[in-house]
């Protein structure tokens, strides 16, 4: 690379603001004090300003935005920007499953009669607690479950309507 090319590269960095402050000061001083540097700076600045001022953006077809939005509306639900899987939710669900399975395994290991003969697994020793469910208690649980199901149904119905409205918008 010849010396002029090296000088040009430094001046371009100066014009673009892509050099360190001390380097910037050094180049600024050279441009002020050295005729060659000043001439090259003038040339490059003219090119820089010429490109900045005269470059125009191309404009796509007038229907471009509409076409993009049509393409987006036609996307399957799984490719919707909103369709994101929250990793925290997955972690919580996984945690609950792992905890439940571990607890069950632990309970089985603890309650198993290891001293029993091979054929007798000691399952008869496991005592399942009997829960006394009264008719009144059963009714409350049933009503609560029904209420929850109806509420969830309404929430999903509202979401489905909203999604449909956005797709058609």
């Amino acid at each position: 690379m010849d010396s002029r090319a090296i000088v040009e590269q430094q001046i371009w960095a100066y014009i673009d603001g892509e050099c360190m402050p001390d380097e910037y000061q050094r180049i600024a001083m050279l441009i002020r004090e050295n005729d060659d540097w000043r001439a090259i700076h003038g040339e490059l600045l003219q090119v820089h300003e010429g490109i900045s001022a005269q470059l125009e953006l191309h404009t796509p077809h007038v229907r471009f935005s509409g076409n993009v939005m049509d393409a987006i509306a036609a996307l399957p639900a799984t490719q919707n920007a909103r369709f994101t899987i929250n990793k925290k939710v997955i972690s919580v669900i996984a945690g609950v499953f792992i905890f439940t399975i571990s607890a069950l395994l632990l309970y089985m290991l603890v309650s198993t009669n290891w001293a029993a003969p091979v054929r007798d697994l000691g399952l008869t020793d496991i005592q399942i607690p009997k829960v006394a469910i009264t008719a009144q208690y059963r009714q409350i649980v049933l009503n609560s479950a029904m209420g929850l199901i109806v509420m969830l149904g309404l929430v999903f119905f509202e979401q489905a309507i909203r999604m449909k409205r956005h797709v058609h918008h």
Partner: protein
Amino acid sequence: MMHSREDDLLVIRSVLQGRQSDFAILVQRYSQYVFTLAFRFVPVREVAEELAQDAFVKAYTNLAGFRGESKFSTWLYTIVHTTCLSYLRRKNNSALLLDEEMLTQIYDQKYHSQPTHRSEQNSQRMLLDKVIGQLPANEAEVICLFYQAGQSVEEISVITGATTANVKVRLYRARQKLKDIIEQCYKKELIE
């Protein structure tokens, strides 16, 4: 007109909350930039529009993955860059895949075989645009990103996957070629 980072983030948040139609704001905001960038890769209007549309659809489907670490425009232009590059690779006519020597040959053939009277007929603006269109795709892209899309060298490095030093070299080469053309034009004007 450049838009602030916060403006874009507000729209993105709205889209992610389910207001799909708000994405049209981003499309309108960046359609010219995206189209111009695609046009720098493939100077065929219909194909460039198709690539630009494809890039916007990809941006929409991956919007939840935008973390806001960079400007939305930088993220979007990265998608445009990869979309155009994939297209060119598929078509197997990418100037980017050619070596530097071949790029120079293409450049020289295109420039110097141009009849001069055609250049004289055009305005400087159109001429400059034409000259940029004749640069190798990687140099034209850098000029477009730097001067038109307002991206810094660092951001162009992120978009193109090239090192900042490489981006600076591309920018230098492209400007050098543009400078030669501009100087030739001025000389002709002075002679006339």
